[in-house]
């Protein structure tokens, strides 16, 4: 089986810890459910991601070098 999360075109997905989540939610003044969603079954997710976790995605960007996006795991 191919592990897509290792593919060069798949950006890095990492699970945020509690404190970091709070920081993100504070920064944007939102609830966790206002974040964009990602499916638990998404093959790009790290194995230890669970429903309700917040994932940080660091993408390469042509214009800003790096674009950071957060998503909440849903089922």
């Amino acid at each position: 089986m191919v592990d897509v999360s290792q593919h060069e075109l798949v950006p890095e997905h990492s699970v945020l810890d509690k404190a970091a989540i709070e920081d993100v939610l504070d920064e944007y003044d939102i609830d966790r459910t206002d974040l964009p969603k990602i499916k638990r079954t998404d093959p790009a997710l790290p194995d230890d991601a669970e429903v309700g976790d917040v994932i940080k995605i660091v993408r390469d960007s042509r214009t800003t070098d790096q674009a950071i996006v957060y998503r909440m795991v849903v089922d």
Partner: protein
Amino acid sequence: MQHSTPKEIGSISFGLMEPEEYREMSATKIITADTYDDDGFPIDMGLMDPRLGVIDPGLECKTCGKHSGSCNGHFGHIELAAPVIHVGFTKLIRRLLRGTCRECSRLLLTEDERGEFRDQIDESRKLGRDLNDVTKAAIRQARKKDRCPFCGEIQYDIDHEKPTTYYEVQEVLASEYSQRIAGAMQGDEEEGIERTTPDELAAKTEIDLTRVNEILSGSFRPREEQREAIEKALGIDLTEEDTNKLMPSDIRDWFEAIPDEDIEVLGIDSDRSRPEWMILTVLPVPPVTARPSITLDNGQRSEDDLTHKLVDIIRINQRFMENREAGAPQLIIEDLWELLQYHVTTFMDNEISGTPPARHRSGRPLKTLSQRLKGKEGRFRGSLSGKRVNFSARTVISPDPTLSLNEVGVPDRVASEMTQTMLVTERNVEEARRYVANGPNTHPGANYVRRPDGRRLKVTEKNAEALAGMTDQADEEGVQTVGPGWEVNRHLVDGDIIIFNRQPSLHRMSIMAHEVVVMPYKTFRLNTVVCPPYNADFDGDEMNMHALQNEEARAEARVLMRVQEQILSPRFGENIIGAIQDHISGTYLLTHENPHFNETQALDLLRATRIDELPEQSGTEEDGTPYWTGRAIFSELLPDDLNLTFTGTVGEDVVIEDGQLVEGTIAEDEVGGFGGEIVDTITKVYGNTRARIFINELSTLAMRTIMHFGFSIGIDDETIEPEAREQIDETIDDAYDRVQELIEAYDRGELESLPGRTLDETLEMKIMQTLSRARDNAGTIAEEHFEGDNPAVVMAESGARGSMLNLTQMAGAVGQQAVRGERINRGYEDRTLSHYKPDDLSAEAHGFVENSYTAGLTPREFFFHAMGGREGLVDTAVRTSKSGYLQRRLINALSELEAQYDGTVRDTSDTIVQFEFGEDGTSPVQVSYDEDFDIDVEGIADRVIDSEFEDERERAQFLGDRARPTNLSEHADDRLGDETGVTSDD
């Protein structure tokens, strides 16, 4: 006129209405179906009861005392003789019937399941998902139960016959059960099923033999468990379906018993909506203002469709009551009930499938409640989101190259209809009076004035002079004179800003602000360079103009919407406005061979620009007269310090040094719309105003140039000499031979198939390749024989219009015609036309056109060409409708997204869509970046600093080169004061 203060909406809640609420808000009960009596007065408690509101002017509303116009009308109500189902809720009713117990009305879910679904609903609410998915799943789960988990009652399936009938499907013992058993006991030899004797059956089912015999004779009906035993033993089905119709009253009783906590599991708020309210017992009657009757010319009243429908409902309702009181048979009652249901149903929705629509006497289907709201012309799309507006004009457009691209020519008759409001003060009172004095019919005039007391006066020929204070009439006839504090609605004049629009408005450049230039005749005039953003041409296109009515709107339009602010397109970040068509041919002629012009000619070329002095001459002719080159003249339009080098349209380098075109041809890629390099650079580096000046001057210079040289095209420009023709024929014959060879190889079976293709496909591909190469070769030959100054070549080379391919088809050969990307293969069996033998694979039999357009096509070629052409037409027709719908859906999906001040993009529920607008928070119009040109950050910074600081000292201070003063002692503060920004407070 007094306006009520606007109020903020606190909240809106959607739910069901309780019958009691209908009664409470009702102004009167309606009991008679008649509207007016013989004297023309509305009948009390009739459908036009004066308590329901007033529509006739002068009358007073009996409920609120207001007059028509200010009274919004009041609801009445009809007490229905029997409950009927509300059509809007048939699906929900079905779901509830299926999900609740027929006996105790409780939701057929255990405590655990309820908890699970409750949690799921909460979760869905939080995530903003569709609650329907959860409730559907809950009902599905509940339907699986055979028995109620609370009272143990057996549950039956519910059948829904659209639109409003529900049946309970019960399994009962079939009437011919004995025959079925006997038949099964016979067995079937063919299928190898053995005979069963009554003894065996008795043994298998553990029923007494005598009972079995009784059952077989049909004198005893087997009980439930006996039936099941027999069914199992014989492998047959002894039941048949029995349907039991559920009357609306039954359903209402059923729903009344559903406990509150049960419906909350299904996502229904029991405080606001009880399921039994979906069965109507009271029907609200819309106020007369919602269904006004019209008086026809002959004095007859014509009632609204809704009134007609209400009349039907009341009539049936009354008949129902009379019949029931008279003790009519159940059958009659049921028929009337159904009829009442039909009328109430069509009152709300008259387009239900399976129900014949209620019709007007004339046969036209009635327009009832749902038809008023639905669809493109409905209340939402037609009346609320799309309204007709005042201060707008529409007429045909035509070109005017003398206008600036910011301007629009407005016909005088439009200008004197559209007005702008002038607030009269001491400073402009003279001007205002001048407008008023002209009256409404002379152009810079005025149509209305408004006195300080709020009265609006129409300016007429008669009172114009008096209003302007030019006669003594003022005192005599009580006409006052316009003075400070008045408002004057004056005609549009040159320089006013208006909004201009062409449909379809597909992008933001479809609506731009223009400055008015009032002109004679009847069309709107625009500069041709704004055609691309509007996608306009002058073959009869019409455009709309909107006159702005307040200072804020005018300021916003001027700053944000003016054409020059839209030169750069947000679609691709480059200029969308630029030279087009003849402008490009013109600049090409001017710069391509760098022709010489004498002084008169040079001045003539530049006469419509700001330049009124020629630059230094480029040189002298042999006879001693000075000349100026085309490039030198073009350079006059460029900013003095522009430096640019790039590869241009013609493939040569274009070099601009210090605002002088040193080398290169100016054509499409240099100055055209859609990313002309020079226009783009000027816009980005020198600003929109400089770009507007450049484009305006460029287009006038180009027009002068093309007029100087003359530019026309004729049939001779697309014909080539016989030698070339022969050469072309030769190549085509050659290609025919090669195709023949391919076909022969294929027939002999020698053709090898390409990877992934069948042999047939390979052959087709190879033939197509050969033929398209033949066309290209023909094109190259034709091209070689064209002169560089051939107008068609000039247009194709410069990118003004047309391509070399068009030229090839005109002079060389039209080439292969295609339908669906293949050679033409359709028509008769195994051949395209009956002119060819079946299975003829040759080029000419499949739509190869060897003639050119100038030479003329043979009838067969013409036919194939028409086939290909038709496909193109169909494609565009299909594409526009498809993409239009696609765009509508996209817009609806994206319309609520908004970039917030923190840089995020969110929807209306504050859910984040992008954490930073477009990942980088930049506008494509404000940023210039592409693969080849990185952003020159340092260059930009240097330029900004250079222009910002005049002397070296300030600049150094800003950049922080200067050493900071060392603050050794507080006593030094006084001397530093002006520099640190701190002043001593003693």
